[in-house]
């Protein structure tokens, strides 16, 4: 049985539907009296339980039990009593703790709950095929996605909205300034938007998982949130995760009980270390304005990238997960963020080789992700190969009376268009775009070392750059191998490609270690130059070994690239021939 909402709210709904039909559709499907009743009961129930939990810990007439909220406590006399012979209670501390409990619930419910609902909804629509009808409608993808974002978790939003009065009140009574509480809401909203965009994007990407992607993305997000809950300040790129936990935003406020880690439910982060947080030598953690600005900028920037990728994938599902041009911008942002956290303080960089290790690890992970995110589907690559094959016809449009000049012009135009394609076109093999991305990472790496050198002396900068160079070469080889595997007629090529990448990046160094080939000593230590982690051997290797390693990498990359180019050429040729043959066969088939 369906329950009609009152007339007045229907008018308001009509206005909403006028601006965003998708939003109204989501609301109409969810806002029923039964659902609302359940949501508000749950919300008020949770608030009641949290309140009850803290009120149960108040000191009673038994003066030596539950003393944490005593206004003054003496180990011999117990809680100090008031004029009415009742213990004097530190109410601001009680309310501050209720505020923290509620904040904890807000963060988890809003972020993980929202991610689950959004990913489940979008993957369900994608699986059933109803998403295609939305794509075919004149409404733009952005408005449809916005409608989903605001509409699908509407019950969750309402439940959280019902918590806000108590949350705000306990925050104020717990001595948190109103501006700080509002800032917390702002940062929480921005982080939730970032996570939501990522979840929707992932739900579209992993459609082959048949709904499992909902659990996967929710689990991954919960893992990330948990990780951000348990951080220890190391002056490394991992400190970035501090910014993904909205509760850390409240770390700067000098409120009673803040420094006690036990006051925060399940939190294990080094909260005092958080105050040492820096970014490119800027003391971010020392000033509340900086913390706020950084957390907001970080969440909004990443959210924006995810949103752009989401919109693109939603509008044209055949596209790669990430556009090549987008990847350059995203890589620049990520490498700047991570390098910034790598170079938090000048004393952190005695040796460039050691210090940027975590930057390199992070960037290797990102590059491996890029290999797959930029990889075109086989059909997209075939279309591109066919299009490339037919380019000479276009390039040979009459441009000059001089045939040799014409030939030279046509060849140069073809070269240019190939480079543009490799740089920007979704269908082209991703190795060239990956090389550009690796170059961007190297550029930021040099910037980091350069800035550090301005402040304090840096040792081994050349070795550090070379280490990244060797690592980048291995990553390029991986990308080419992945593309080769993707082109083969294999059923489970994704697993095979992932296995190949793991074997090259992790397996090969492991084999060297297990066979006792030590990078620091031993006759064959130079073999470590062929791995993604050559920094250990760079000090020991001589010039000829390094030269040989560079030559080996170059030969391998060139061989794989040329072979891939030839394979694309053959594919394009056969695709075009098949197209033309079938076109001419039609005439024969006509009655």
């Amino acid at each position, binding site marked *: 049985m*369906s329950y009609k909402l009152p007339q007045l709210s229907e008018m308001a709904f*009509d206005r909403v*539907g*006028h601006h965003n*039909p*998708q939003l*109204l*559709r989501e609301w*109409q*499907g*969810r806002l029923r009296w039964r659902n609302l009743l359940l949501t508000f009961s749950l919300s008020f129930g949770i608030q009641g339980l949290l309140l009850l939990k803290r009120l149960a810990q108040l000191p009673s007439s038994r003066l030596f039990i539950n003393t944490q909220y005593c206004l003054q406590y003496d180990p011999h006399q117990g809680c100090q009593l008031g004029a009415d012979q009742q213990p004097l209670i530190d109410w601001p501390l009680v309310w501050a703790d209720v505020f923290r409990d509620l904040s904890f619930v807000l963060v988890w419910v809003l972020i993980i709950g929202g991610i689950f609902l959004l990913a489940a909804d979008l993957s369900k629509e994608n699986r*059933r*095929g*109803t998403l*295609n*009808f*939305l*794509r*075919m*409608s*004149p*409404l*733009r993808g952005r408005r449809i996605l916005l409608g989903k974002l605001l509409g699908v978790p509407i019950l969750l939003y309402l439940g959280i909205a019902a918590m806000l009065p108590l949350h705000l009140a306990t925050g104020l009574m717990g001595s948190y300034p109103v501006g700080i509480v509002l800032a917390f809401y702002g940062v929480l909203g921005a982080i939730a938007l970032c996570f939501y965009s990522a979840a929707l994007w992932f739900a579209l990407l992993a459609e082959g998982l048949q709904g499992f992607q909902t659990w996967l993305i929710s689990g991954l997000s919960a893992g990330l949130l948990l990780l951000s809950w348990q951080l220890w300040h190391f002056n490394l790129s991992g400190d970035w995760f501090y910014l993904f936990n909205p509760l850390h935003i409240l770390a700067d406020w000098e409120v009673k009980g803040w420094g006690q880690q036990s006051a925060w439910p399940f939190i294990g982060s080094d909260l005092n270390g958080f105050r040492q947080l820096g970014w490119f030598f800027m003391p971010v953690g020392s000033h509340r304005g900086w913390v706020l600005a950084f957390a907001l900028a970080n969440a909004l920037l990443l959210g924006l990238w995810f949103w752009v990728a989401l919109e693109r994938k939603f509008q*044209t599902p*055949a596209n790669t997960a990430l556009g090549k041009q987008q990847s350059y911008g995203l890589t620049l942002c990520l490498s700047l963020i991570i390098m910034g956290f790598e170079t938090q303080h000048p004393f952190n960089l005695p040796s460039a080789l050691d210090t940027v290790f975590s930057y390199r690890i992070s960037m290797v992970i990102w590059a491996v992700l890029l290999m797959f995110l930029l990889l075109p589907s*086989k*059909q997209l690559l*075939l*279309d*591109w190969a*066919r*299009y490339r094959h*037919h380019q000479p*016809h*276009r390039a040979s*449009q009459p441009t000059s009376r001089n045939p040799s000049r014409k030939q030279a012009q046509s060849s140069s135009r073809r070269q240019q268009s190939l480079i543009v394609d490799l740089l920007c*076109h979704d*269908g082209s093999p991703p190795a060239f775009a990956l090389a550009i991305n690796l170059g961007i990472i190297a550029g930021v790496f040099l910037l980091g070392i350069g800035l550090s050198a301005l402040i304090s002396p840096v040792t081994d900068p050349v070795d550090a750059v070379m280490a990244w160079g060797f690592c980048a070469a291995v990553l390029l080889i991986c990308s080419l191998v992945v593309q080769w595997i993707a082109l083969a007629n294999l059923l489970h090529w994704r697993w095979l490609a992932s296995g190949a990448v793991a074997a090259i990046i992790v397996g090969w160094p492991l084999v060297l270690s297990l066979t006792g080939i030590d990078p620091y000593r031993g006759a064959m230590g130079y073999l470590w130059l062929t791995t993604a982690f050559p920094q250990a051997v760079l000090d020991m290797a001589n010039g000829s070994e390094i030269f040989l390693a560079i030559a080996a990498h170059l030969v391998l990359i060139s061989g794989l690239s040329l072979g891939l180019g030839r394979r694309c050429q053959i594919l394009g040729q056969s*695709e075009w021939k*098949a*197209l*033309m043959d*079938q*076109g*001419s*066969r*039609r*005439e024969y*088939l*006509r*009655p």
Partner: protein
Amino acid sequence: MNLPYGLSEIGERGFEIMEDGSEALISGFMTSQDWQPAAMPSALPGVGNPALSVRNITKRFQRKTVVNDIDLDLFPGEVYGLIGPNGAGKTTLMSMMVGAEMPTLGEIWIEGQLFRQDQNSPQLQRCIGFLPDDYPLYDDLTVWQYLEYFARLYGISPGLRHRRIYDILELVQLSSKHHSRTTELSRGMKQRLGLARAIIHQPSVLVLDEPVSGLDPVARMEFRDIIKALQQSGMTILISSHVLSDLADFCSTIGIMELGYLVESAPLNELYNRLSRRQIFIATLGEGPALAQALDAHACVVSQTRVSDREICVEFAGDEAAAGELLRSLIAAGIPLCQFNHTREDLETIFLKHLDHKQVS
């Protein structure tokens, strides 16, 4: 390879050059800067511009050509029936026509404008209504909410929206169910609701992919009546179905697809005249040989088969007028006829014969 009309004056950029020097658009790799539109498909005398045109359309998928170089025109008010065995490429062709799939080669024109899936063109998207086979509905909405949602998606103004929904519910005979949840509807009702959704924005071209598959005879009949009503309102309809008797009932043109090719496309009458064998069953009260002799004299009689002493089955090469002429000539010859039954092969037989012929080819 012969290019269809309308592609004779194509600009040099944005097109692939065919082997014979002619050009055709390769979709998917043109930027808007590259794009120079080809000439619009020209009108046929007395019929007007086509409501939807498909030119050289080809779809290759995983190294297999699913749709092969198809040209097709749908003229305003025409009901075009697309038939073919499973896997012939009907659904892929329709998906490309409505913008759900990107063609590998070729172009689609709607109301004289080039339609590209990768370019946002709301006014062209409003010209098309599409109902696929087994279309899933939203379980959490009522019939009214469902139609209202799509009416809003297509930007129908608030003043017009309710009136339109009422009218369409009336047309698809779901007025009494407007407060029911979509899960409460029968399969036939769901299909009618899908049709209502496809026409809520009054498209000029309606594409229906096997809309009656899985429906019982009554539901099929109801659906057929609705399509006839839409036909009368002047809507251009492209419909694919395996129920050929239904198509023969309301289609003005028939296309036969096989292995991705459109192997036949002609008005239904022409198809019957060209491909349908006519038979006349004649019974006399008089002498059989006299009847056979009289039939021999008629030019349109191809062959005779004696069914009994006084009954003959004739394979006839003429049309209805010629059959009338034969009847008159037999009466004039004094043959005492007691039965003259003129029949012709139906669409299903034509299709099966056509299929056999092409497979032999």
